[in-house]
């Protein structure tokens, strides 16, 4: 009997030891088990993995796992502490003082001791972001800051040029390490850091495989407690159709954006959860207004009139979306409900082209001053789902009916980004924008944002839009901002820099083995450190 008791006692202690966190690891102590891996399907490969030079959703999701901001936003949309444990705001709303956590270290490189996070990192991040040689769409968002000062190693003070609405939320920008960059003054896409980022977040980059899978492992020293899932693996799929199959055959555990064709099947399959999340997004055909033929808004509008968006939405996306009229998503506070989408009217399209001075050439293509309306349309291969291919084909057919020749080119994601954002070598492009709740379109349509790697890739320029964007940024009055955005919507819909298409329904799908999943509608993985997989379902 004694022997039996001693065996039980030994087993008990062994179990106890196994349950203890690894030396140095910070447990979340929320009762959920650690372990397991999460393979998630992405629709492309991120170009860069740092939060400053990247401008796509794929990188944003990875960055959300690797980095932290001074403040964060919780599930109830409240601003919460992150790298800053508290803050003071001066009465005039111009001085923001952040008191930083003193228990945060940067992801340690192999064989090196972890480096502590300090005020120097915050100051360097801001300076790098704003440096003229750093090319980033973030710059326009932080012009409201006048100076940043280090008070001590764990206190930073930002002085604003003027008070602005929602200033505190803007301090959620991700902080990068002073010791991480090759050049501590600015960052370029050539800096090794953009492929090997170091952060403070719940996950650390382990490696990027030859297939461009991004493998992240749990940060044992994460200051909010070790995340539960051991590994996150981002697997790129050039074809969304295959991604759905991969989930159904358990090759992956999660899809961040479900192909519409797969929704009925996934909804009927009890192994998976189909979770809607409302990213404020829309798809569009964007015009390059550097091409003189497209500089005339009548031509751009003619293209929009010529395209039957409802037919495309119904045929290719089973009607699972909403046709839009302007530069905001219908789920946004900024959407102008008075502006209706232009109707499908090929006659009107033809009339506008004629008004713009085009006549039909011998080959049936419209031309002006001897220049035919023959245009290149560039589409990223990451978008090459069957539905997108059909959209492109339909677009080409609709335009051919009004005498416009479209030469569609599908390009690899990175090459496409270079052609659109860097070289501006395109006439028309197909893409989608995703916004956070602020509905800030300044980087998209302000004329100052038309340079290399900036978001105004089509060089749209309208003085009224510029001044309204500036006024919108300056005002502290919500209703005024709302009115201005309604006006912006109205003007931009009329200027037609894009053929605005639709907002599609966003669903994530995941295997039910994943528990306590909460998804941020924009950043997606914000709450991923709390997700877990029960021991019995870890593999």
């Amino acid at each position, binding site marked *: 009997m004694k022997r039996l008791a001693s065996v039980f006692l030994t087993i008990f202690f062994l179990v106890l030891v196994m349950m203890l966190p690894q030396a140095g690891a910070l447990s979340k102590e929320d009762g959920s088990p650690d372990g397991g891996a999460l393979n998630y399907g992405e*629709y492309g490969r991120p170009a860069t993995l740092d939060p400053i030079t990247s*401008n*796509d*959703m794929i990188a*944003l999701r990875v960055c959300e796992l690797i980095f932290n901001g001074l403040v964060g*936003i919780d599930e*109830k*949309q*409240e*601003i919460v502490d992150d790298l800053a444990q508290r803050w003071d705001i001066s009465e005039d709303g111009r001085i923001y003082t952040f008191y930083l956590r003193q228990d945060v270290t940067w992801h340690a490189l192999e064989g090196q001791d972890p480096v502590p996070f300090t005020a120097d990192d915050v100051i360097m991040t801001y300076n790098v972001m704003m440096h003229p040689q750093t090319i980033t*769409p973030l710059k326009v*968002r932080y012009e409201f800051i006048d100076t940043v000062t280090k008070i001590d190693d764990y206190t930073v003070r930002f002085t604003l040029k003027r008070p602005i609405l*929602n200033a*505190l*939320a*803007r301090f959620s*920008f991700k902080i990068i390490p002073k010791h991480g960059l090759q050049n501590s003054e600015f960052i370029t896409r050539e800096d090794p850091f953009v492929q090997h980022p170091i952060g403070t977040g719940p996950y650390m980059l382990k490696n990027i495989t030859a297939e461009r899978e991004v493998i992240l492992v749990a940060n044992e020293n994460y200051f909010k407690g070790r995340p539960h899932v051991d590994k996150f693996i981002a697997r790129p799929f050039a074809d969304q159709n295959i991604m759905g199959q991969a989930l159904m055959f358990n090759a992956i555990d999660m899809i961040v954006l479900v192909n519409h064709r797969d*929704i*009925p099947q996934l*909804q009927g399959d009890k192994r998976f959860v*189909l979770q*809607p999340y*409302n990213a*404020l*997004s829309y798809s569009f055909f964007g015009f390059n207004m550097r091409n003189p033929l497209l500089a005339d808004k009548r031509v751009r509008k003619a293209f929009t009139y010529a395209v039957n968006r409802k037919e495309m939405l119904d045929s290719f996306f*089973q*009607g*699972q979306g*909403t046709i839009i009229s302007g530069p905001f*998503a*219908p*789920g946004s*506070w*900024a959407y102008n*409900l008075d502006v209706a989408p232009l109707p499908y009217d090929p006659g009107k399209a033809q009339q506008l082209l004629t008004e713009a001075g085009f006549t039909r050439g011998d080959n049936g293509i419209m031309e002006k001053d001897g220049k035919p309306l023959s245009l290149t349309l560039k589409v990223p291969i990451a978008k090459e789902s069957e539905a997108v291919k059909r959209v492109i084909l339909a677009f080409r057919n609709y335009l051919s009916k009004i005498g416009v020749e479209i030469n569609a080119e599908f390009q690899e994601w990175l090459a496409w980004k270079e052609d659109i954002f860097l070289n501006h070598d395109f006439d028309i492009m197909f893409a*989608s*924008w*995703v*916004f*956070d*709740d*602020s509905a*800030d*379109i300044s*980087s*998209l349509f302000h004329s100052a944002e038309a340079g290399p790697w900036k*978001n105004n890739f089509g060089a749209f320029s309208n003085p009224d839009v510029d001044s*309204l964007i500036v*006024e919108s940024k300056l005002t502290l*009055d*919500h*209703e*005024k901002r*709302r*009115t*201005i955005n309604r*006006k912006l919507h109205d003007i931009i819909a009329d200027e037609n820099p894009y053929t605005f298409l639709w907002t599609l*329904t966003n669903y994530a799908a995941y295997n039910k083995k994943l528990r306590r999943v909460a998804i941020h*509608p*924009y950043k997606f993985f914000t709450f991923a450190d709390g997700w877990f997989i029960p021991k019995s379902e870890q593999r």
Partner: protein
Amino acid sequence: MPKAGFILAMMVLLALPSHAAKDPFKRGLQLYKKHHYEDAIQLLYKHLPSEDKSDRRGKAYLALGMICLANAGLYQDLYQASTATNLDYLNRLLSAKGPSKSQLVNLYLGKAFLETGRLSKAAAFFKKFLVAENSKSRDRDLAKIGLATAFYLQNKPAEAHALWAQVKKTPPELSISLAAAYSRVGLTEKKPLATCKTALDLLRQSGDTPSIQIINNLIGVYSRNGRIDAGFELINRADLKAFFHEEVPAPNKVIRFYDSALLSNLSSFYAKAALKFLEKAYALPDKKNKGLTQYYLGQGYGRFGNPEQSMRIMNEFISAAGGPHRLKNRARVRQAFNHYLLGSKETTTSQLNALLQSEPESDLVAEMLLSAVRYQFDAPQIVIQASAMAQRVQGRSFSRINFALGKYYLWKKNYPKAISYMEAGRDKSHKNRVEFNDPLMLVNLAQAYYRSRQFSEALEIFFEMNKHFAAVRQIQDALQGVYIMEQKSAGDVKIF
């Protein structure tokens, strides 16, 4: 419960001989099936068969009654959504600081509180508006009408009459507003209907089109006076998405105001229309549709303020030989809540318990739960049974039981649970489309999202709904207003 007997009703009604798929009656029912209630009502009403075709006319009345009942129920929930959102928005506007503050916010808070029966608060805001400088004479008169109504309802008739007497009788908008106030408080001796007719004639002579303020008031007056024809004529030509007031307190600052009374008036109007049509169908010697007519008439009376009549009609329906068992059970649920409305809670409890013990189908449990929530009647046994059923059933019944549970948790302010149930039952292939999802469910889901500060999800639902129900615009506008004030984000945008 306008949808409960839907399948049976469709089967019976579509049994009508018809020569062409373009038959307006069949088209009307197809529109109803797609939840395009107003299109269906317009079509059926326009093509009502002549008096000599009593069989066809009876079915048309029954169909119109059913659809109006569904529409009345939908506007009732839209009204609840609107009052909540509108009040939130107006309160936020009120708390705004700075020189370009809204003046009209006090007037509209007065209206909002008057509408929800908080009379002292309503009076306080109307008074606040009246003491402010620079307000327009017409707006001051509207405030006086509102304040007087609040006084009257607070049992202060002298003060009310004194204020009403100060209101100018022109333009027609003011006289109609005054008439609507008299109608609302039951002062029939003031001849509100006649006043409206005179004012409307004046308006027509001047070539002006009725403003939304006029339309709202007229719908209320027509509804109370049973003027269904005039009401339909008005609604068919009205732009129900129009704003009531636009204020420009500063350059590039435009605030729009809406009155949620419009949704409440529309609900009452459609309820009145439903009862009128169903009463006509009931009066016809149409034995084939008698049961169905009784059932819907009983539902209509019960839902819209006449539980005694509902009890009588439902007793007739239940005790009649034959008839569909499912509808009879639903009629029993109605009866249980008629008892509740008439003050006999014990009878309600015992009748519901009896139904629960009869191995009810999930649709019946859903109906019991939805009724319980409607009357804020706590019945934990129904919730337990419904929750268990939600794990088992499939198809349309799955949606219905999940909706009922979602609505229950919305009432209980457990918004994550409300969302989780309603999302489970939502047709995700057609997420926001009213053709594939019960619009009542969508309104409640939008409410749950709104309460969880997931504004864009709520806005998307209303955006799609607005395509078929124009008056939804007032909820969208208020929701956008709350959203901008609540959102906390960094101004990020990415390509994908």
